[in-house]
């Protein structure tokens, strides 16, 4: 019998135990990673279709008709199909990419090794967490194939649209039900993951690894787990209530006298705003669930490749904690447009602005880390720098949106689309790219191709700015979001060339990602062999072979004597001191 706690399980022998239902945190991390890779390409494909339709709304594409006979009759996409693509794009990207890869993928693989543990605290729970996430993805994708197709109500699933059923649109029948069930399953999986991350970090650190010696990656994974723990529990509760409104005739979110498609519904007394409060209590911390791990990776890489200690380690830790804490008190800024007491709006606005303080501390410290450093412009470092750039760009537009008076104007425009794609979407994905290039040698024992990596970085960096920067201009010009077609509005006529440019930039950027896919799979077999510590880094994962053995440290137990960022230490024999080096 294997020991249930802390990786005392022996090395698996069969294929299924080793690669499918594995208890090994490293295999589970890789499983999460590739689930996210599949999801990101699916989500990206949906966005490309959306961008195509926005610019060529009358184009007849026979493939559309084959894929969606009722959603694209004659090959022309209906507005309902466009909205379902938008809903599924947002949902898949937020839950199965941004929540999954940075935390569950990289965190699963590297948290135990970085803290000197043999595995996660609860390996069986860890395995179950992955397969539950997988089930959630299967149910979500299945929503495309049920009668009526995928739901239309956006990744936020606002009622009444999401709660009244088939009556409100083709995807609002079984598709929306599948969506809610999938998200409920995902919540369960995330809660299991959070339990593991928190218990592992608190209780399984190696001797000498005090909290203030933890790499910032571990701090960010810990705080992200706490956010997930508190946020997903609330979303699960909200999902249960929404499902009951749909299936059991309750009236939590549905008011009286609701008229939908000429039918008066038999609900009364509920409030759609109640859903919004519950959803955004989860939804805003979700933004930090997506971005905090990227911050951890960026901190790790900026220090390593600048050959300098991270500037203001403690301030960075407190900033992570501050962002996580404040993240629970700002959900109302998503609801300025929903009608709110001005005093409440003021409070939410002030709290929102206050998140700028820890965010600015982090940015300042990243720049301070780079200042005077001997910077190595590896692909991983370039993506980390790209992360900082995107975080700042996306963050600045957030300051506009945090003010009720401005948000009233911007809220339903492309300004918001540009903002959250920059800071939550692309920045987090740059963090994933950075982590991939940085840790690939540890996972596989080989480097990814640097030349291809740099080509991919520069083209992607230009591409994403080309897509999302114009959105801010569109928003300021009053271009509404969520519309399937702009060609029928005179006041938007002059903006259509910008949409055309963005669509072509999206095609280009999507195509460029094939370079990454090729590099990823090619390098697994053909990449240049990497030594144990190719980046001259200091943390514990670089003290073990690549790939690490089953129990990470081959039965030995590391003792930590140093902080995680001891670079260019005066008097030291080399320009870095590993955490496990003698005191």
């Amino acid at each position, binding site marked *: 019998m294997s020991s249930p706690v802390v990786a005392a399980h022996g090395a698996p022998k069969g294929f299924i135990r080793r690669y499918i239902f594995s208890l090994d945190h490293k295999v589970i991390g890789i499983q999460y990673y590739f689930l996210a890779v599949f999801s990101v390409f699916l989500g990206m494909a949906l966005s490309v279709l959306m961008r195509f339709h926005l610019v060529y709304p009358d184009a007849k594409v026979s493939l559309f008709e084959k894929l969606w006979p009722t959603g694209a009759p004659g090959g022309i996409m209906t507005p309902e199909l466009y909205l379902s693509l938008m809903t599924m794009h947002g949902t898949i990207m937020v839950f199965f990419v941004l929540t999954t890869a940075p935390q569950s993928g990289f965190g699963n693989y590297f948290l135990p090794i970085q*803290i000197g543990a043999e595995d996660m*605290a609860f390996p069986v729970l860890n395995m179950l967490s992955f397969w539950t996430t997988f089930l959630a993805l299967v149910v979500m994708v299945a929503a495309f194939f049920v009668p009526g197709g995928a739901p239309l109500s956006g990744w936020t699933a606002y009622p009444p649209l999401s709660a009244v059923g088939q009556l409100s649109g083709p995807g609002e029948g079984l598709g929306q039900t599948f969506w809610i069930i999938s998200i409920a399953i995902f919540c369960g999986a995330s809660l299991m993951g*959070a339990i593991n991350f*928190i218990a592992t970090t608190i209780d399984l650190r190696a001797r000498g690894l005090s909290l203030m010696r933890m790499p910032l990656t571990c701090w960010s994974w810990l705080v992200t787990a706490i956010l997930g723990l508190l946020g997903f529990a609330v979303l699960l509760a909200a999902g249960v209530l929404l499902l009951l409104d749909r299936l059991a005739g*309750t009236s*939590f979110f549905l008011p009286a006298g609701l008229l939908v498609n000429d039918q008066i519904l038999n609900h009364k007394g*509920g409030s759609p705003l*109640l859903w919004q409060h519950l959803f955004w209590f989860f939804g805003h911390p979700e933004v930090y669930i997506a971005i905090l791990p990227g911050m951890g990776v960026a901190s790790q890489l900026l220090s390593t490749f600048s050959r300098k200690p991270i500037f203001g380690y403690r301030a960075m830790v407190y900033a992570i904690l501050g962002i996580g804490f404040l993240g629970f008190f700002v959900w109302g800024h998503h609801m300025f447009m929903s009608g709110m007491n001005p005093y409440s709006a003021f409070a939410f606005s002030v709290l929102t602005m206050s998140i700028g303080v820890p965010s600015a501390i982090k940015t300042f410290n990243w720049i301070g880390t780079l200042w005077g450093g001997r910077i190595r412009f590896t692909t991983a470092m370039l993506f980390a720098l790209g992360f900082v750039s995107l975080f700042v760009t996306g963050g600045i537009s957030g300051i506009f949106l945090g003010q009720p008076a401005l948000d009233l104007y911007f809220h339903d425009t492309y300004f918001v689309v540009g903002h959250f794609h920059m800071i939550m979407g692309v920045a987090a994905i740059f963090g994933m790219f950075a982590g991939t290039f940085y840790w690939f040698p540890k996972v596989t024992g080989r480097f990814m191709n640097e030349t291809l990596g740099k080509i991919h970085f520069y083209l992607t960096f230009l591409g994403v700015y080309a897509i999302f920067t114009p959105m801010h201009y569109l928003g300021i010009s009053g271009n509404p979001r969520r519309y399937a077609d702009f060609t029928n509005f005179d006041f938007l006529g002059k903006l259509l060339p910008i949409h055309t440019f963005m669509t072509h930039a999206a095609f280009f950027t999507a195509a460029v990602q094939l370079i990454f896919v090729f590099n990823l799979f090619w390098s697994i077999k053909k990449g240049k062999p990497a030594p144990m510590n190719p980046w001259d880094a200091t943390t514990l994962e670089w003290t073990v072979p690549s790939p690490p053995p089953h129990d990470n440290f081959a039965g030995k*137990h590391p003792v930590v004597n140093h902080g995680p960022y001891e670079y260019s230490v005066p008097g030291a024999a080399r320009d870095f001191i590993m955490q496990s080096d003698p005191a």
Partner: protein
Amino acid sequence: MGTSITSDIAGGVAPPPTTQGFGGGDGEPGGRGAHRRASITGLMVLLAASVMMFAAFSSAFFVRRGLSNDWVDTPLPGILWVNTGVLVASSLMIELARRALHSGKRAAFNRYWSAATIMGLLFLGGQYLAWQQLNAAGYYLATNPSSSFFFVLTCTHAVHLLGGISALGYIDVQALLLRLGPGKRTAVDVSAYFWHFLAAIWIYLMALFLFWG
């Protein structure tokens, strides 16, 4: 493998302590100690998630209650008081069992723990009867918001309780198979704490139903 989720989070056969074991950085090293701490931490984290879920339902309860005039208090079936007594007594039994085990009184432990498990099942049966009585009186899930929340909250609690009974049953089986060695103490403690938590949540829910209907 043969390892269940219950045993996964509740500890189990820990590897022998090592001379340079995992101590949680600031803590003391030692294999079993770290495993016990991790199990307790895991439980606390799980409880935090449960508290958040009940808090979310509760906040929706109060907001929805103040929204409109369609709220009609749900009459509490008398059997709920019996159920409350059974669950509180069950919690007491668990504590007596835990203390008996720590004193090395295995027979007393088995007696108390089994009694607590049976009481847990009785509580679930009693809840089912309460739902039946409400249905008979015309109160269903969608009758009015008060009854909606009553059924949602009691069912959520029952689902939690099913998890708790699984943990209690696991310990019962281990005791029956004479496998309740020192390595299982953590499982006993974690299951007991979770059971106390369920009793506390139930008392909170009763107060909620009683005072705010």
